[in-house]
């Protein structure tokens, strides 16, 4: 494949590498992919991602695509959504899926864990009010089960309700009957998912990506 980046990109890549933690090689490969998806333009749109055939049969594709256009994932303290993203923002979203380095301290691992869980949280919390309400959670489960037809809706409600109950029980423990559990906050979310070692699970191998096998 030869030289993956021209010299003129070097300083840019360096900045990106520092910001996101990817290596030059990985950035080069992702840049190629970005260009391929956006048909060589500078900005990527939702429609471009919609055309990826692999995503067609994914039950949560809308959420995945939305995540790329969600400002909260750009690490710039913004919120809301955008219509199109640049390569830098694309890279920042992708950086959520980088594996943690081998020699991380416990604090650093914790930070990585929070970051990844924050990404997941943002995917669920669509109205950006800082909590995942019952409706939002139901929507998540419905999407997951969206393949099973009519059966899915009823069970999805039941499952989501059971899950919500579990979160409330674990996080709060004791509530009076007239208290109302508003929704899952980020702290509660961290608590219930602390046993899934997210920093080891939510990773994609960015090494050894041969550009010749990039699917259309």
């Amino acid at each position, binding site marked *: 494949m030869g030289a993956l980046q021209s010299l003129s990109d070097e300083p840019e890549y360096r900045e990106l590498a520092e910001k996101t933690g990817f290596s030059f090689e990985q950035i080069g490969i992702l840049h190629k992919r970005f260009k391929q998806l956006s048909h060589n333009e500078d900005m990527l749109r939702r429609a471009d991602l919609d055309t990826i055939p692999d995503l067609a049969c994914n039950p949560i594709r809308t959420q995945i695509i939305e995540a790329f256009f969600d400002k909260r994932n750009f690490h710039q303290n913004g919120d809301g959504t955008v219509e199109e993203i640049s390569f830098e923002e694309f890279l920042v979203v992708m950086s959520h899926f980088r594996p943690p380095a081998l020699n991380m301290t416990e604090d650093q691992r914790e930070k990585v864990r929070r970051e990844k869980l924050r990404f997941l949280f943002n995917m669920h919390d669509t109205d950006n009010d800082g909590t995942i309400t019952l409706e939002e959670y139901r929507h998540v489960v419905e999407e997951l089960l969206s393949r099973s037809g009519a059966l899915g809706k009823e*069970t999805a409600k039941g*499952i989501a309700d059971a899950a919500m109950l579990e979160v409330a029980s674990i996080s709060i423990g004791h509530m009076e009957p*007239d208290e109302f559990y508003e929704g899952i906050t980020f702290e509660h979310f961290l608590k219930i998912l602390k046993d899934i070692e997210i920093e080891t699970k939510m990773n994609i191998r960015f090494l050894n990506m041969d550009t010749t096998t990039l699917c259309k």
Partner: protein
Amino acid sequence: MSVHALRKSASSSFVFVGIGLPIEASAPAYQSHGTEGSHLTNITNTKKAFPVLAVNYEHVRKPFEIALWILLALLMKLGFHLIPRLSAVVPESCLLIVVGLLVGGLIKVIGEEPPVLDSQLFFLCLLPPIILDAGYFLPIRPFTENVGTILVFAVIGTLWNAFFMGGLLYALCQIESVGLSGVDLLACLLFGSIVSAVDPVAVLAVFEEIHINELVHILVFGESLLNDAVTVVLYNLFEEFSKVGTVTVLDVFLGVVCFFVVSLGGVLVGAIYGFLAAFTSRFTSHTRVIEPLFVFLYSYMAYLSSEMFHLSGIMALIACGVVMRPYVEANISHKSYTTIKYFLKMWSSVSETLIFIFLGVSTVAGPHAWNWTFVITTVILCLVSRVLGVIGLTFIINKFRIVKLTKKDQFIVAYGGLRGAIAFSLGYLLSNSHQMRNLFLTAIITVIFFTVFVQGMTIRPLVELLAVKKKKESKPSINEEIHTEFLDHLLTGVEGVCGHYGHYHWKEKLNRFNKTYVKRWLIAGENFKEPELIAFYRKMELKQAIMMVESGQLPSVLPSTISMQNIQPRAIPRVSKKREEEIRRILRANLQNNKQKMRSRSYSRHTLFDADEEDDVSEVRLRKTKMEMERRMSHYLTVPANRESPRPGVRRVRFESDNQVFSADSFPTVHFEQPSPPSTPDAVSLEEEVPKRPSLKADIEGPRGNASDNHQGELDYQRLARCLSDPGPNKDKEDDDPFMSC
């Protein structure tokens, strides 16, 4: 007739000589079995008195001895667990070997010949249950995530061990002072290949007790299972060569080809039998009683078939178990599932116990040839080669892994490489023409003793000392399950965006293939359409419901008072606070079970799941408690309200189907009737109090104050109970027993 003569006449291929009773009196003149015919000449002519009591030990000798041995083994096992401090310090395998030594010594003192662990008995009867148990309950997710690492350790690690040890031992034998100059290279390599393989039985026995974290456990355990192919090939190869004496390049090439044939062939045979078993289980809905037998027999046939072709039997068993499990479990009834689980645990437990005891006995029995240098060098080399192998391989593997193996992990993997009975049996199988056979056997036994005793006993304190991560005792959590599935889809999607055909991409493809084509053929009824999340949810609810029914109380995994009321958005009717408090207090007193039931998801050898406390509850007490609770609930739910259905303002949890439990169209749904603006402010929404989780399917009709409703409530309760007695995927006609019998 001497004891020896009798033994010969009653012999078969077993070299199984037991503690025979010295009495061999046979009934005079009435012995009917033909084998002794030659001794009985005075049968009919003289009339003797009718023998009222006679002893005929020969008649039952073999089964009697076998049963006696097994009983002895189990009593020993029982004994260990009664001495609490002992079993905490010394792993069971060590204790059993010591018992074997004692028994062997005892037999020798009596003057008989102690039995040796016959290889045929071992490979055909004692080993398969353990491997099937391991394979059937193999945790698939960690296994497939680490399969690359496991294969590298199993294949390359074992090869490295074999050649390193064989080579160095040969070099040792060349030294004049050792006095073993007659040993040639091939014999040393043969010995190396026998003793280099990590043994699944020993690993299981020791690792079961230390509860190490999942990753290390699956690495060592997976390695011990998959190295069987390597061991088989190497062993056969060197055995053949050492007879011939020379090795050509062609032979080596054939050896490599043989390795692939043995391993892949074994897996293929296992997979075929697995699919057959899955297909058969599709039709067993009318004969549930024999379902477990199909599982056992198909697996055993897979093992025997592959052994017949000299393929790897262990890999066949594992493949069979892994392949058939998801489909069989979707088809069989709950009781059959429990039966399979229990039987596998039971058989593997007995096998393991017997193996270790026999190891001890064989040590006393076998012919030994001791050579200090050779044996000590073997032990040291074993350790050294294992450590070097693990370190070297991890260095290479870590370049390809996302989650790297830390030094602690490496240490446990290296230290956990125990040798066991397979090595001994392979050594025993060596034909007597090998002049070094006895020496080899002695060395093998020494290595086994060393690894099991020293490494087995010290691994637990070392794990504590090094603060290695232990296994998480996690309750099945629906949130984790949802998010695991969510993550799978998310990662597949992101891989799609990256344009990278990675791990998740192929996994997703396999899943889709499985769902569209395979499941259709192998799963009965309409169940194959059911997504995993729903199946998981169902299982969880079923477990809870059974627990509730059996213990007479509602389970609350988490002691909390949170109910659906707290989560649903507002507009809930209110009763006077005082009344509510009173009702809740009473209900809580009856219903709340504050014991936290910790259930670990994995199946350890000694406990299945902690609801074995069902033994504590006797039938009568159960029934009484249930009725009592039911009565009280109905009694206190007497708040006047407009009884109309659907009742506005009251949220009811309804049980959808009664007898037809869990057939695919009507699996239990949970209905939540949303409250319209409450017109009956007095209606007590008490159903929420009763089920701590909304999914508790008790059709406990709410506020009704009359006796008939009381009865109705009870009826519903019983209906619920009956339904839960055997919720197979299809209606079970034969399981009409009331729930008590389960």
